[in-house]
């Protein structure tokens, strides 16, 4: 059954939640979404190596990449969408424009596998996508002081880093609010008087 928007809905905005395998992206999307999380898919057909091959073997592989998303109605007119996107950067191009026009991103971290997020952070920096870092606290994951994480991730002090429990609505909401406040602070700095 479709969960429709009111007829007054005029515009959608988006926030991207990126993180490695199993860090809790779907959980976070689900905990704050007003609809059950949905999945959109994209298929990539890739010609085998050697495109102009003399071998006559046009081996093509199809990869399907799924992305979960949820929705939060902000006002009668404005709707926020949250997209939980796998960390593997090689799939991002599939979602044409996923990061373009996004308000910003949440990098979701799992302290058991911090490295999987390094590439993601680098790419967001390169693309100029503003982001905050949320550390999903798993019981068996090591706990690091925030400042130790900041220096490990080599992030400037302006970028918020916080712990969260993606299963809890209030905690996920606070992560999003932290992102919004951060974005707001960026406009304060940037706006010419």
């Amino acid at each position, binding site marked *: 059954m479709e969960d429709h928007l009111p007829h007054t809905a005029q515009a959608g*905005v988006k926030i991207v939640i990126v993180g490695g395998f199993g860090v809790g992206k779907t959980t976070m999307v689900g905990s704050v979404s007003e609809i059950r999380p949905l999945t959109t898919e994209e298929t990539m057909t890739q010609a085998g190596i050697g495109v102009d091959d003399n071998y006559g073997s046009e081996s093509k592989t199809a990869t399907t990449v799924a992305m979960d*998303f949820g929705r939060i109605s902000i006002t009668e007119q404005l709707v*926020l*969408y949250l*997209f939980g996107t796998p960390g593997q950067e090689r799939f991002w191009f599939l979602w044409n424009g996923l990061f373009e026009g996004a308000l910003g991103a949440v990098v979701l971290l799992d302290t058991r596998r911090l490295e999987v997020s390094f590439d993601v952070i680098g790419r967001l920096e390169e693309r100029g996508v503003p982001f905050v870092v949320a550390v999903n606290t798993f019981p068996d994951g090591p706990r690091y002081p925030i400042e*130790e994480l900041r220096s490990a991730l080599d992030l400037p002090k302006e970028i918020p880093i916080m712990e969260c429990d993606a299963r809890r609505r209030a905690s996920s909401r606070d992560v999003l609010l932290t992102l919004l*406040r951060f*974005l707001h602070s960026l406009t304060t700095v940037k706006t010419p008087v």
Partner: protein
Amino acid sequence: MTPPQRRRRHPEAQPPPPPEPGGEGAPDGKRVRNPERLYIITGAAVEDGERAPIDLVTLIVASEDPPPSATPEQSALLRICQAPLSVAEISAYLNLPFSVVTVLLTELLAAELVQARAPIVRRARADRSLLEAVMHGLQKL
């Protein structure tokens, strides 16, 4: 226990280089990334009529009932868009890849069977009033 250390690709964090006049990317292979420019490129493609400006969060509403000539996919799309839905939701409910939905919508937009309510943020930075609205909405959660 110490966490692993991230290494930047360009170890010295430099401020982004100023855009080179007319340069898409530097010849040394280091591409200058400029979100504003990306948008302009997207916009140009749209004006060429090659592709409708369809984003995952573009809201779509059917303006007509499916005509007899509509394909099953088109009919299904028109049926679920009696009230607004985002392109992402259409893709999820119809179980069709995002790119397929984009093609379907391009046809339906051309035939004026659907209306697209464009996403308002296609700029490098969202404006303050929008951010404040989203903040207030989240606080109510």
